[in-house]
């Protein structure tokens, strides 16, 4: 009765849940030449004009438009157009005021006082005040609210409304990622929600906000329609309407783009490099490219046996516990080959857990350029040699394999140590072709230095529950989507190794622990930068993960839209209110 296939959109589920709301917010450095060229032509044309409709294609449908309840990127995308936060990330990834005019941070970093903008109105006419922030804060820390985002707010010791436009929070300990957390997650219309069950509220499907756009209509499974908010406190957007159209199949979406059904979509690497070069598309659309806050890695299980309760490592993994082995694997893998082969060049090799050209990224860390000879040397140092009986080469290889089954040690091109061959399995998730291809390339490269690899593909939920959570893996290929704040405490701190916690490779380095702590406890940018530079340096040397690549986002937008100014990490949606279509080129007229 039900045929299943098309798991393409699973791909998104993997990276996006945590890029989510951040992606709509903020920004930085590397834009390729193509996009720069596009930029020039883009801004040098006719004057800004009001009107027209922008249709964005999306694979996933939003689920709920109250940010704190949503877990998916589609919901966060739409919600961010309708509801603003106290602060937002600017194009250069610094935090600037949004609904907050300004803020003070006390000397010791414990107290943050927000001064809100006056006269900002919810679209139903009621004024936005500090009470709405307080209400949002109380809701998110309420045990009954099913939210995944309460952790940052639990660090708050005391929250108080000083007056209508002043809101103050006090922390137990200084917490640098705190400021960025006061985005649109904690802004709720108190006058509409007070005393009601937020999960049953109509607002999830018909949000009332004060953002750039106003909610108009949601046809389930088809589209969400927003219209320009005429009373927006920074002036109404030029574009009349924004439509978020759900098209679950990426191939269909691309056809819709060609047929004129949508104006904006994210391209896959192959679409970007090979399929979007037709004369028609070149003339009518502009392609953009910028890095996203995410990286893909091969994680190695550093630990053989763990304490069940705390997840503390009792016995190091005899192979991967050795730094030389990890470095050898890094030397044996050609990252450029992976970027060119599976991403069609649309990404960059990763050297650590930060995105190139962002402030925590340290450019001077150890890099592992492809060097199989060096890899072999390091493996030999670590005691890995291809030993055993050398069979005459004219014997069929099957013969050797049979002897091996029978328990003989054969000199067969695979390294051995203590009577065991260097053979392990890489796990990755189904539906993500890029990762599967990466695994296959790694398999071939490691075979060349004498390591035999098996690749096993698993359904996402099974993968996480049965293998990652239970630590039953040797190596995995996975990706992290990151926030715009560089705090990666949960991934690297040695205390985060319990079941379901994210240091699942059991990395343990007291210096990194201390630096992570330091990085999140100070607001001094120089101090933080120093800490993250050092963390980057240590991780690049010790390689708890083999860092593989940072992917680029590759969207395409109809050329009639001007004023688009993409920036690394933050993307292009951050200034959507400044996009416009010159009067003569407008396609859709709204008649009512």
């Amino acid at each position: 009765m039900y045929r299943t296939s098309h798991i393409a959109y699973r791909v998104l589920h993997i990276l996006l849940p945590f890029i989510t709301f951040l992606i709509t917010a903020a920004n930085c450095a590397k834009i390729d030449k193509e996009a720069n060229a596009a930029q020039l032509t883009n801004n040098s044309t006719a004057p800004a004009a009001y009107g027209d409709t922008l249709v964005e294609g999306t694979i996933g449908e939003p689920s709920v438009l109250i940010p704190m309840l949503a877990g998916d990127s589609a919901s966060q995308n739409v919600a961010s157009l309708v509801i603003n936060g106290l602060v937002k990330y600017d194009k250069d990834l610094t935090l600037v005021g949004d609904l907050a005019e300004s803020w003070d941070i006390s000397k010791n970093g414990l107290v943050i006082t927000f001064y809100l903008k006056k006269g900002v109105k919810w679209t139903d006419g009621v004024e936005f005040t500090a009470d709405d922030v307080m209400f949002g804060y109380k809701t998110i820390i309420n045990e009954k609210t099913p939210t995944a985002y309460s952790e940052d707010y639990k660090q708050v010791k005391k929250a108080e409304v000083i007056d209508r436009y002043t809101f103050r929070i006090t922390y137990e300990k200084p917490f640098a990622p705190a400021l960025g957390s006061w985005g649109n997650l904690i802004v709720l219309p108190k006058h509409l929600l007070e005393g009601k069950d937020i999960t049953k509220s109509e607002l999830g499907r018909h949000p009332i906000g004060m953002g750039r756009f106003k909610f108009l209509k949601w046809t389930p499974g088809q589209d969400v329609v927003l219209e320009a908010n005429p009373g927006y406190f920074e002036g109404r957007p030029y574009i009349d309407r924004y439509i978020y159209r759900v098209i679950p199949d990426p191939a269909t979406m691309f056809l819709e783009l060609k047929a004129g059904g949508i104006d904006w979509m994210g391209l896959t690497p192959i679409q970007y490099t090979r399929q979007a070069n037709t004369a028609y598309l070149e003339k009518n659309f502009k392609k953009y490219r910028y890095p996203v806050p995410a990286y893909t890695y091969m994680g190695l299980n550093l630990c053989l046996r763990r304490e069940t309760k705390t997840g503390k490592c009792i016995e190091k993994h005899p192979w991967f516990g050795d730094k030389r082995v990890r470095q050898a694997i890094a030397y044996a893998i050609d990252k450029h080959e992976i970027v060119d082969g599976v991403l069609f060049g649309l990404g960059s090799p990763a050297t650590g857990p930060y995105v190139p050209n962002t402030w925590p990224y340290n450019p001077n860390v150890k890099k592992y350029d492809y060097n199989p000879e060096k890899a072999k040397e390091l493996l030999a140092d670590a005691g890995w040699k291809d030993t055993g009986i050398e069979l005459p080469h004219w014997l069929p290889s099957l013969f050797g394999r049979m002897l091996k089954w029978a328990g003989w040690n054969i000199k067969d091109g695979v390294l051995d140590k203590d009577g065991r061959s260097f053979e392990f399995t890489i796990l990755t998730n189904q539906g993500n072709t890029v990762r599967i291809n990466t695994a296959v390339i790694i398999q071939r490269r490691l075979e060349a230095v004498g390591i035999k690899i098996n690749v096993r593909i698993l359904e996402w939920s099974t993968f996480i529950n049965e293998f990652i959570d239970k630590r039953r893996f040797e190596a995995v290929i996975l990706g992290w989507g990151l926030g715009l704040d560089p705090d990666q405490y949960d991934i690297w701190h040695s205390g985060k190794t319990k079941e379901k916690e994210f240091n699942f490779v059991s990395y343990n380095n007291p210096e990194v622990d201390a630096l992570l702590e330091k990085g999140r406890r100070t607001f001094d940018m120089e101090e933080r930068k120093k800490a993250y530079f050092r963390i980057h340096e240590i991780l690049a040397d010790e390689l708890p993960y083999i860092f593989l690549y940072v992917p680029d986002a590759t969207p395409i937008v109809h050329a009639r839209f001007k004023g688009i100014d993409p920036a690394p990490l933050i993307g292009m949606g951050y200034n959507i209110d400044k996009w416009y279509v010159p009067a003569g080129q407008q396609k859709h007229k709204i008649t009512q």
Partner: protein
Amino acid sequence: MITYLLKRLLEMIPTLFGITIISFFIIQLAPGKPTDVLADLNPKMTPEARERLTKYYNLDKPIHVQYLMWLKRVVKLDFGDSFSTDRRPVWTKIKERLSITILINSLALVLIFAIAIPIGVSSAVHQYSLYDKITTMLVFIGFAIPTFWLALLLMILFGVNLHWLPVSGLKSLGYENLSIMGKIWDSVSHLILPVTLEAFGGLAGISRYMRSNMLEVIRQDYITTARAKGLSERKVIYKHALRNALLPVITLLGLSIPGLIGGSVIFENIFGIPGMGQLFYQSVMMRDYPVIMGILTIGAILTLLGNMLADIGYALTDPRIRAR
């Protein structure tokens, strides 16, 4: 007849009960939990937050207790709320997708029967002729061709190159501003490709079935008798043979009823149609137990009803069965 019907209806209750128990336990056997989608590898999700969600969904309770809680709601015709982040009632989610799925499936079903029956009959009558071979080949092509691929080709041809039909979706942008006729044409044009393609894939089964039934009937003595009486070939085929050959088709029709609410994920994804197939697939992927159970239960009820209707239809049309 009435007692028979009542008996059949009563028999359905334990069957349905059994189906729900088995379904409920089997979906829990799959690794993973509804909290995964919100929580998996999200660095912001602490174990405490995960626990909070587990409690919220009552997943901390033993499985038989969960089943009883579910059952208690269902006997009151309430399928509960979805576990996905929108937390809307299951029935609302099913309802908003049901009509389009039923519409497309019934249109396709009508089209399949309207085309497959004549094809089957005529190719049986002209067994081993060139016509028989060509139609056989065509319906098998329809059966064997990957429909998602054919769908993309047709979308490129009619949607992108010729601009005759829309590529996907159910309505065009600016639908509200169209005239009545414009609106009707807009809806129809969005349905042409999906319905045609779905019907194309379904022709093979029914037409082959019809052909073999017909062949069997034609060899019967009463057909020879009819011919011997001097009836025209037309009368022999359409009056005497066809009626008898159609009887088993009633069973097929009855068995197609649960299929009416089951959409194909591939079709719906490719054409961007928000139907039941998508809903079911997404809820399985998210381990959205209430929605999965809701759809399975409705499917089970329809299957049982379909079986019963097929039997009744049989009894009504075939005197030999009625007698018993």
